[in-house]
């Protein structure tokens, strides 16, 4: 059964490009575009990996990550955080919150595909 990836991203074109790339890799891809309700969506769909944008409407990626890590079911869920803010303090905060991998935008397609496979194989 193919592994499932949830992309939480509010930029529709980035979402579209990422979805295409990961589907082409044989993964099952779903999307969510809002910070609000995101944790509940993850709870109900239980993806194998979450690609989480840091800046989202209503609830930030960082808050979502903190919520997830506070739940027993998601302490080890692979979360790849994407952000346009590559500052050290943001990276440090994400690592503190328990991110699996932190990538800055703009990313190379090959790099994100490689990282998704790496996180899914763990």
């Amino acid at each position: 059964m193919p592994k499932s990836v949830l992309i939480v991203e509010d930029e529709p074109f980035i979402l579209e490009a990422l979805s295409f790339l990961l589907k082409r890799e044989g993964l099952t891809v779903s999307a969510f575009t809002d910070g609000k309700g995101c944790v509940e969506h993850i709870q109900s769909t239980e993806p194998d990996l979450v690609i989480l944008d840091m800046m989202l409407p209503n609830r930030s990626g960082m808050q979502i990550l903190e919520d997830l890590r506070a739940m027993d079911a998601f302490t080890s869920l692979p979360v790849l955080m994407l952000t346009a803010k590559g500052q050290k303090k943001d990276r440090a905060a994400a690592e503190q919150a328990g991110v699996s991998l932190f990538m800055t935008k703009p990313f190379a397609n090959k790099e994100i595909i490689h990282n998704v496979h790496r996180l899914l194989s763990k």
Partner: protein
Amino acid sequence: MPRSLLGTRIRENRRSKKISQAALAKQAGISASYLNLIEHNRRGIGGKTLLALARVLEVDPRSFTEGADQALVGRVKQAAAMAPTIACEVDKTEEFIARFHGFARLIGRQFDRAKVQDETLQAVTDQMNSDPFFSEAMHLLVSNITTIKSTVEILSDGQGIPAALRNRFLSNLLTETERLAQTATDILQHFEPSAEGDDISSDTTAAETILEKNDFFINQLEGNFISPVDYAARLNLSKADEDETVDALIKYSAITQKLPIDTFLSIAKPCNYDPIILSQKLNVSLSVVLRRLAHLPKREDIPRFGIMECDGSGAVIFRKQLPTLALPRYGSACPLWPIYRSLSQPLQPIKAFINTPTGERFLTYSLAQYADQNTVGLPSRTTAIMVFTPDYEMFLTKPEIALQPNLAVGLQCSVCPRANCEARRAKYLLQ
């Protein structure tokens, strides 16, 4: 410095002065073999011998003594701590300083500079982070670029893209490119001067704000109907702002006394608003005429003049901005501006056109003058004034315009695109 390294220090000092061991020993009145033992830290050294060696080497004997460079030791150690990936021999810092004092001082100085630069960078970063527009615009910019980069990579590798999806990606690319252009334009506009009528700058002083609200022309002061003190008192300002405003209004009022507006305007137009000619005709100093030009009524038949005054360090002490030329408050202006050139030639007026990177052109008059009386052996402080107008075509003919020198200037280095400028001192941020 540990006493055991005194000898090392003496040896390095001797070598730097190219004196042989034998020659130093002889001049200091000790044997060469004893000096050899001292230099290899195998013999202690008494006060008398130390003084003799210091005398011959022409150094302060205190520079050999224990603890003389503790501050430097601390700075070199901190510099090493800043680069943890380089395995510096921190335990040998004292020996290093003793042997290579010049290099150690260089490291100390570089460390000091790095600290200052780090603090400056942090301040600038904080400033940018606190600008909500800039932060949002940069986020958008990166998102635009991410979409374009990712989509172009998908299209260029061409694998597994149905025709309909390819068209979809091409459409996304077009839309995102347009958004990118719009974001870039918005950022540029954010850095450009505000439109007329807006607050020109957030770093405007209280006095400048009062004058700006009145277009730098206050009828009551022009007609001497009210004193600057009474005028400022009506504005409900804080004590500090009121004091500053009174000072500025007193200067303005003095100009109105020396050059009443009706008298000035009656002669200014026939003289093509040339401050040098006006100064001669009206028999007043050039600086008074320059300041008068900054305080003219706002009328369609009168050219607009801005003004900038700076002290000898280049710091702006008074300014009237125009919508198309924002002036810096804190010393980050372009050194090519004639006002800064005038500082090196006090009392020599400079008349020149300046062309900005955004295509605006201004006629400028600059004058530096002495701010205090000469003291024997000490040059005077200088201040400088520059007035500028974009409306030169209202009073100059095309041949007259063609005759004037043209200076290609910038606004601030970090946002100035003149790549090959010899006066550049900061990297262009937007490249």
